């Protein structure tokens, strides 16, 4: 549980750090919508190169962004394969007949075992996955001794390849956009930006200042609660609880043995916090003051203009 990182903010300086969080949030929403309006792969590749240029201008390390992509790597590979296998439009590019036989089933099992065995060399994880996929491909097409059965043909169509590249690049740009936001903006600034943007919600009786304060408190307490959950789990484990195994009924019991102390601690903590806030004369719903006020400056104006231009361009391309 320790490896859940809350907020990905990395201190630094550069163009994106200086922007107002409001500009960043609004721009990213508009850029994402613009991205979904693009329809063919040329436009998307242009968008991709523009975003790479922007990363270089903002002096953001591309390696860091790629690291941020890690959690969705499996999703990207899955999407890619899914498109290649199921999209059957356009001209046929590869038509490989395949079938099963006793020898191929045995060797598939063998290379899967080998792959899982080698998987603890974390460095080559990705290469190993590729080698495994390639191995299955070769075995299914050529490696047959004895009778074969269940023949089928593996087909790749032009449209499938095109769509798979299209979808993967689009996902890449989207994830990069949101990673830029979370890497260059402190969670507190993000909350403050959100507070200002939600101000019009007052019409339906929502106080955006209190709401933003609630978000800030939650963000502050996530690591603390994680730590406590860890302690409780260790305490229960030392009493003989086993969180990893058991039937559904045991699982529910374990969840309860974790949740009850967590709620008790959370409520006590909220009481302490309320005491602290009250003694500092915090009054809910009254305006608060800040040391740092958000400022809208020249680079925000440039960013907004850039976003507006991208959005307009993508609408024009869509209509044409």
């Amino acid at each position, binding site marked *: *549980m320790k490896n*859940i990182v*809350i*907020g990905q903010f990395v201190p630094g300086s550069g163009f994106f750090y200086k922007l107002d969080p409001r500009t960043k949030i609004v721009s990213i*929403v508009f850029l*994402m919508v613009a991205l*979904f309006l693009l329809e063919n792969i040329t436009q998307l590749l242009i968008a991709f190169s523009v975003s790479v240029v922007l990363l270089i201008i903002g002096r953001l390390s591309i390696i860091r962004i790629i690291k941020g992509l890690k959690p*969705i790597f499996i999703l990207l590979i899955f*999407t890619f394969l*899914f*498109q290649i296998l*199921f*999209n059957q439009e356009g001209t046929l590019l590869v038509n490989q007949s395949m079938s099963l036989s006793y020898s191929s089933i045995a060797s598939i099992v063998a290379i899967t075992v080998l792959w899982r065995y080698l998987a603890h060399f974390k460095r080559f994880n990705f290469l190993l996955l590729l080698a495994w996929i390639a191995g299955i491909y070769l075995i299914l097409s050529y490696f047959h001794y004895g009778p074969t059965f269940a023949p089928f043909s593996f087909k790749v169509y032009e449209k499938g390849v095109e*769509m*798979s590249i*299209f*979808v993967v690049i*689009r*996902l890449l740009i*989207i*994830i990069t956009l*949101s990673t830029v936001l*979370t890497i260059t903006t402190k*969670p507190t600034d*993000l909350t403050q930006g*959100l507070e200002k943007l939600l101000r019009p919600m007052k019409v339906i009786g929502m106080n955006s200042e*209190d*709401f933003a*304060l*609630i*978000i800030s*408190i*939650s*963000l502050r*307490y*996530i690591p603390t*609660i*994680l730590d406590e*959950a860890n302690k409780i789990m260790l305490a229960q484990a030392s009493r003989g609880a086993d969180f990893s195994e058991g039937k559904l009924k045991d699982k*529910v019991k374990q*969840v*309860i043995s974790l*949740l*009850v102390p*967590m*709620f*008790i601690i*959370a*409520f*006590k*903590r*909220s*009481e302490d*916090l*309320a005491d602290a*806030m*009250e003694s500092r004369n*915090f*009054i*809910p719903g009254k305006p608060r003051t800040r040391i740092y006020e958000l400022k809208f400056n020249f680079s925000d104006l440039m960013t907004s203009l850039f976003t507006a231009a991208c959005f307009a361009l993508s609408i024009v391309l869509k209509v044409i």
Partner: protein
Amino acid sequence: MKRKSIQKMTIIAILSAMAAILMLIEIPLGFAPDFYKLDFSEVPVLIGAFALGPIAGVIIEAVKILLNFMINGTITFGVGEVANFLIGLSIVVPASWIYTRHKTRKFAIIGLGIGIVSMTVLGAFLNAFVLLPVYASVFGTSVDGLVAVGTLVNPNITNLTGFILLAVVPFNLVKGILVSVVVILVYKRVSFLIKGKDHDEV
């Protein structure tokens, strides 16, 4: 009165933090495709809503979704988040509304039962008309492509209706029942801490 509303705020905040953490611990269920995962993040929301009323529940649910967005980002520019929010509300609001009117165990169970039904129904509709189409367009495929993933898990799933009835509806039922069981077992053991405060202040 002032003290009470400050504490209400801090309780809402800390329960949201708990919900956001629980949302990260996902358990896949065997019978539904991998992208439907069970989590217990609705438990703190329901407990907060039972103790402080439906509006507190709505706020906790909203903060939970926003925190999750800050942690994980989004790939559906918010559509998935809004749908999650609505599905969460569909169990929290009816259950807590009924419970705050009649504070007995019997009505807690009735409320949660109605909540489960409304979550299942709304979940089915939102999946069929909003979530699946949006996810399909993000991954550049059609809804049938996602249904095909369901077929891999359960061969009886052949079309969208089958997907909803055999994967989405049972998933939401199981999720609702498990969450409700945990809430009923946990609530009485922890609620004295919040409710005791109520009497002091009045």
